[in-house]
């Protein structure tokens, strides 16, 4: 039976599912920064193959509420995301577009039963997270993983300025 789990919703909103489907959980920390002019960063999360081909888009946090799609002007500042996949998209794309997020830790959960993981061929991948902040910097983190996971797995990374702690958890 195929369970429809919209990408981006945490599992807790739907009630804890029986451990039928594999799952990918991502925790991303947007650091609290002590700067005079603070803007929430643009962040893109996607999956790429070892040779940097985009395999799946997971989410893009940007100023999508601005009128006349004004927020799309700065999508190019996430320059690896833009190059590998973003520039071929007509944003906002349903299911992978969200507003910018405040400092703190944010969780995303994806079921192996649903898009995009359901269509992900077995192999070696990297979760890529790229952040770009107005009057700020840009940072990119990559976390390698195997899909589908045979055993429970966890990868962590930590950014230095625009991203905090990132944790990727895979459940088979």
């Amino acid at each position: 039976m195929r369970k429809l789990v919209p990408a981006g919703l945490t599992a807790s909103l739907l009630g804890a599912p029986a451990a039928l489907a594999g799952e990918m959980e991502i925790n991303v920390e947007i650091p609290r920064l002590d700067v005079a002019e603070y803007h929430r960063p643009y962040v893109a999360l996607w999956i790429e193959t070892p040779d940097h081909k985009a395999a799946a888009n997971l989410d893009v946090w940007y100023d999508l509420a601005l009128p006349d799609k004004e927020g799309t002007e700065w999508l190019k500042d996430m320059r690896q995301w833009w190059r590998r996949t973003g520039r071929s998209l007509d944003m906002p794309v349903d299911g992978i577009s969200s507003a910018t997020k405040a400092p703190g830790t944010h969780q995303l959960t994806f079921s192996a039963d649903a898009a995009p993981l359901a269509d992900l061929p077995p192999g070696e991948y990297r979760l890529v997270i790229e952040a770009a902040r107005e009057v700020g910097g840009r940072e990119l983190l990559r976390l390698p993983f195997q899909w589908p996971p045979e055993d429970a797995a966890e990868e962590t990374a930590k950014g230095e300025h625009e991203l905090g702690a990132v944790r990727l958890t895979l459940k088979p």
Partner: protein
Amino acid sequence: MSRFQSFFRSFAAGAAALSLVSLAGPAEAHRMWLHPSATVLSGEDPWLIVDGAIANELFYFEYYALPLEGLAITAPDGTSAEPQNLNHGHYRSSFEVQLVQDGTYKVAVAQDAAFAKYMQDGETKYWRGMAGEIGSAIPAGAEEAEVTHLERRFEVFATVGAPTETVFTPTGKGLEMVPVTHPNDLFAGEEATFKLLLDGAPAAGLDVEIVKGGSRYRDAAGGETVTADSEGLFSFTWPEAGMYWLGAETVDENTGIPGAQKRNASYSATLEVLPQ
């Protein structure tokens, strides 16, 4: 008379009074270039600002504004885009274009000019203007006329959204660069390949100079030379991110304009290399 032509005529009228360094042969010519405000753009109908200059140092405005005669902006669908807010200043020309289509635009200034030097009544006289006007340029009775055909092309490329390649089609005249690696897909540490053509055929054996901008802030001239192979292909690995000037020139006798002894062909492109 178009606005461009009136710019050019005022330039030509002052040519005799100017230092003639920029009108001399390639060995003494200043670099000529366009400089884009950006090359990779996102959003709805973003604006592209382009500066033009004749100046050796990259990319500083310190010698002469680039005449915008022969400016052509080609949109991804092949149509012409109109420049706005044109300005021809002391050291810098500039204009703006609103990029309303997705894809790759080419902004080019193509000069098809001629330069003549002749003797009249014992005096040395000079003339500079469009190549098509050379027939009426030199008066009867002029002696020792030397006519040089100048075919020069300066280009920049800018892309909104996904890159396209429609604007790469060469004209088959003068020196031109046909990208193999897309010019708006250049990143530090990666190798890019381009093809150089002269009158539509591979410019085999021609040297191409590639210089990173920011020359004011370093001691080394910073240029590197690569040579086009028998197919006109040349490659270069960008050492770091930045704006780069790419230029080539040649002198030969392949000129279709009457009375010309030689043709100076030159090409430059200003390319932006992004960090990884």
